[in-house]
């Protein structure tokens, strides 16, 4: 009975984190981006520096009419936001926050997270095709092309710390982590982070949703709650990518006072990486399609392969 209660508790905590952390990142983006652009951002909702802005946005989304275009493929169109969002929720289960503080500690944790994350893109592709809109379709094609280019360096870079630690378990990788991995695994970390940004279609890799060219890509025809689900998926993706970077490359809960404050270290490191994700959006202009492809194939893949070779030599020696 106690075991059963624990499973339910763990699932509830994961769902709560899944709903709260993306909103936190979203609010930080509102404020940080505003200040970087010499604005103040939301100030009124909730009273104190607009802290309730995203809650208000959520209420607004829920009130909007749910429109499905006449020519759209109704079932696929309606299913797409769920397909985009659910994989991230499932992947959250395997992310360790502290020793033992994990939804479900899997032997193949890293592989599980990568596999499940790769399913999420299907939602955007489904939305892009089913909307029966040429901008959506173009966005869908751009997503597919981008994903195929960046999936390879993403997985290759993630393999490097797993090889160094000798395990695919995320908890095991954190436990094997040493501070000098920061230097030694730096190329893999950069490749992982950049390829992750591209997989999430975050700026500067937001060709698929480039608003000045193709309106909003695959999400053009979505309104109300379904659109909000796509947005939530994007921010959940940021949290997941940041948490994975923190766990794989930054040592997760390792740090001073890790016995008592380990979970806080993981969250702080995740938060710092998430801030860099936001920063990149403000700092860099959008990459063109050919620049995207050559960055993936001519820079990231070779760097990831070289890092793998280096890791192999050090791990075997």
């Amino acid at each position, binding site marked *: 009975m106690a075991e059963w209660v624990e499973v339910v508790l763990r699932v509830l905590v994961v769902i709560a984190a899944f709903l709260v952390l993306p909103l936190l990142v979203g609010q930080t983006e509102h404020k940080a981006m505003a200040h970087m652009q010499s604005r103040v951002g939301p100030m009124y909702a909730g009273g104190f520096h607009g802290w309730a802005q995203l809650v208000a946005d959520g209420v607004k989304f829920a009130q909007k009419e749910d429109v499905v275009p006449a*020519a*759209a*493929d109704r079932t*696929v169109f309606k299913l797409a936001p769920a397909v985009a969002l659910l994989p991230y929720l499932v992947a959250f289960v395997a992310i360790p926050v502290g020793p033992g503080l994990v939804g479900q500690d899997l*032997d*193949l944790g890293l*592989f*599980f997270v*990568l*596999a*499940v994350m*790769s*399913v999420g*893109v*299907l939602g955007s*592709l*489904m939305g*892009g*095709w*089913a909307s*029966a809109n*040429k901008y959506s*379709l173009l966005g*869908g*094609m751009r997503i*597919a*092309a981008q*994903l*195929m280019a960046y*999936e390879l360096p993403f*997985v290759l870079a993630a393999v490097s710390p797993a090889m160094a630690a000798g395990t*695919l378990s995320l908890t095991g990788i954190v436990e094997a982590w040493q501070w000098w991995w920061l230097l030694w695994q730096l190329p893999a970390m950069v490749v992982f982070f950049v390829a992750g940004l591209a997989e999430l279609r975050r700026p500067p890799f937001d060709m698929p949703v480039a608003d000045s060219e193709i309106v909003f890509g695959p999400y053009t025809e979505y309104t109300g709650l379904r659109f909000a689900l796509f947005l939530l998926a994007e921010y959940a993706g940021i949290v997941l990518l940041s948490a994975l970077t923190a766990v794989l490359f930054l040592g997760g809960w390792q740090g001073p006072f890790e016995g008592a404050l380990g979970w806080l270290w993981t969250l702080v490191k995740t938060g710092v990486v998430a801030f860099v994700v936001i920063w990149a959006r403000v700092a860099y202009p959008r990459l063109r399609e050919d620049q995207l492809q050559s960055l993936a194939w001519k820079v990231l893949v070779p760097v990831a392969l070289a890092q793998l070779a280096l890791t192999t030599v050090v791990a075997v020696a």
Partner: protein
Amino acid sequence: MSAVEVLFALLGLVAVGSALLVVTTARLVHAALWLVVTLGALAGCYLLLAAEFVAWVQVLIYVGAVVVLLLFALMLTRAPTAAEAGTVTANRPLAAGLAVLVAAALVSSLVAGFRDVRIDLDDSVVGSAETTGEALFTSWVLPFEVLSVLLLAALVGAIVLSRSTRGGGR
């Protein structure tokens, strides 16, 4: 029947049902999406057979990459969401007959070869990453290397085909 067996049978039913839908649906993109369901159900079957590693590889490679590639190709060639005519050729009965024959051959050889093999589900290391890796790089290392050479040949072939610069045409 135990819960695992019931679950396995259900997943098998889902896999077969969605596989039939893949070949009967009138819209090609729907076929690709039903293929996702088939491959996902197969991954579930692998999980229940304690082949954890194979299950996640199935999801990562087939659902995450192969189907995305398929959808990309379909989006390039067919934009309309309406049902398409003319996607069925006269070869259909022939193809169906061939598929049944192949299925019969595969099923009979599997049943003949593994009739008495039982997996102990309590011993969960049967298909973990460690055991899979060890088997792959000890007893199966030669077939593994031969396959990688085959893939390399296919890669080189693809590059040669896509560079249509015969006589410096570019």
